[in-house]
């Protein structure tokens, strides 16, 4: 890797003749924040395809896409929160709660599509509550959402009595929610693209970065920092809820033990591996998709390679660390304009 980084650095030293177009476009590409993690994802895919010819089959790609969809959708919310300097640990529990809200609302005679929106609004309201406690009552969001994480989990287990139920179905709704193989990843990619555009090209996105980058300065510039933060908490809640309903609709069963903190950690890991800083102020939505892809490829690839489940966690842990060290130092070189 180091040779790969240093070569262009030499080309850049002094006012030497302009490098050829190939070098320049490579350099331009590498300067894009998301590039490094995409390179990692592609290298992993090449590795697993060469080690196991079943990797790039339709069936396996479907499995892979279903594995990464939910964490990627939740990561879109978590990334917005991380950028503005907050985190939501309860998202995995909201994921499990949402389809139950839909289920009970539907059982009470409400049309399924209305029940669906009620569930999303409910999850958004949980996000707002997280935001209210964190921003207005000034409890660090790590602690706030640690509390609501247990609270929501307990609530879901209570209302479901701990048993799964059948997810309500209805032709068009179930079709849209994804009873076909690649439906969920389409949702995820569309949400990623919309959120990526929103982060880069709207005032909301710009102010989210600004609030995380300089909280006091943003307030001095007249930005309503409370609104930005609470809005992003609500967004994360709603996205977690949507991911939960998509998953429950695909599987056909609504399980109180679905998602949970492993799901939340996958989403946060996807965000962080993708290049979003835990310190706030910078982040990328599309990077979250690539981060999720890396996690998914590792999980899926090692599984079909038949790696022992115990070894697997060692490998995935090490992979996360290596990816992060690589990413952080790559970013440092990038900001210094060293390549």
């Amino acid at each position: 890797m180091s040779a790969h980084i240093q070569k262009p650095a030499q080309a850049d030293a002094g006012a030497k003749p302009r490098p050829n177009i190939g070098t320049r476009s490579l350099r331009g590409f590498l300067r894009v924040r998301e590039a490094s993690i995409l390179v990692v994802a592609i290298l992993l895919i090449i590795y697993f395809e060469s080690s196991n010819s079943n990797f790039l089959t339709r069936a396996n790609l479907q499995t892979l896409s279903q594995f990464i969809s939910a964490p990627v959708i939740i990561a879109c919310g978590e990334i917005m929160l991380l950028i503005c300097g907050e985190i939501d640990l309860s998202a995995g529990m909201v994921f499990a709660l949402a389809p139950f809200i839909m289920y009970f609302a539907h059982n009470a005679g409400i049309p399924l599509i209305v029940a669906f929106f009620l569930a999303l609004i409910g999850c958004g309201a949980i996000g707002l509550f997280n935001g209210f406690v964190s921003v207005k009552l000034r409890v660090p969001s790590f602690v706030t959402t640690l509390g609501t994480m247990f609270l929501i989990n307990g609530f879901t287990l209570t209302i479901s009595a701990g048993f799964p139920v059948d997810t309500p179905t209805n032709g068009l709704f179930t079709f849209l929610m994804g009873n076909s193989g690649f439906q969920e990843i389409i949702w995820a990619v569309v949400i990623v693209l919309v959120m990526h555009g929103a982060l880069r090209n709207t005032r909301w996105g710009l102010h989210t970065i600004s609030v995380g980058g300089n909280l006091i300065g943003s307030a001095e510039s007249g930005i309503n920092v409370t609104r930005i933060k609470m809005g992003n908490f609500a967004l994360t809640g709603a996205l977690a809820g949507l991911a939960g309903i998509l998953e429950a609709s695909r599987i056909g069963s609504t399980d109180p033990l679905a998602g949970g903190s492993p799901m939340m950690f996958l989403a946060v890991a996807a965000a962080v591996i993708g290049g979003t800083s835990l310190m706030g102020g910078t982040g990328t939505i599309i990077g979250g998709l690539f981060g999720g892809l890396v996690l998914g490829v590792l999980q899926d690839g090692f599984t079909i390679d038949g790696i022992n489940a115990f070894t697997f966690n060692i490998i995935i842990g090490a992979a996360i660390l290596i990816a992060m060290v690589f990413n952080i130092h790559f970013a440092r070189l990038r900001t210094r304009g060293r390549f």
Partner: protein
Amino acid sequence: MSQVQAAPVPAAAPARGVTEVLRGVDIVKRFGAVTALNGISLHLNKGEMLGILGDNGAGKSTMIKILTGYQAPTSGTLAINGQQVALKSVDHARALGIECVYQDLALVPSLSIYHNMFLNREPLRGGPLRLLDNGAMRRRAQEALEDIGVNIPNVNEEVAMLSGGQRQAVAIARAVYSKAKILLLDEPLAAMGARESGLILDLIDRLKKRGDLSLIMIAHNYAQTLEVCDRIMMFQHGEVTFERAAAETSVPELLDVVKQNYKVIRGAH
């Protein structure tokens, strides 16, 4: 305390030919039991540059926060262009032409220069989609910086990459560009090397020469303040202890004032 220095705030109307843009009368600000401002009166004329000196805790920054609408005074009145106003918010003060360059500069390191220059007043395009007009921001940021003679090669650069002086210049350009009539500078030279402060003082000088901008600068450094300001006020423990035209005073005199009042205030306790 006012008997120490015979330089009371002129309460009379301004002299003929001078337009007054700002007047504060008997401004008091208390935070619980702490009195940050204990009845301060000040005024600012059009095209004038007022320097406010004082130690930490003298009330300078609190005064700035009141003038920018960031905090409301406990009591006292403010008039802008002869009209009495109660500033409701930062946006309200901005609408009246009051801009401030804060000590922390209110810049976001991870954003580009042009995004910082338009923070919270971004031009939009795309109709109902309300997208950021990055092209316009880039172009206008470049123009605004050139307009006040600041040489920054690339407005796409992240603010994190700029030196202290360049950051200060970007913050000042932002305030000026937003059609400031009254520009407040909170310690613009703090923690800056000689060369960088020289650049900023030059910039402030150019702004003064435009004549349409009135400035208040808060500072620690007496010599630099005397050099660029038309008039000096000294804040101590939330009160004005000295006020004079910059040409009629000197660093030794200012130091004397500080010493005297320091003793008086200490003795009173």
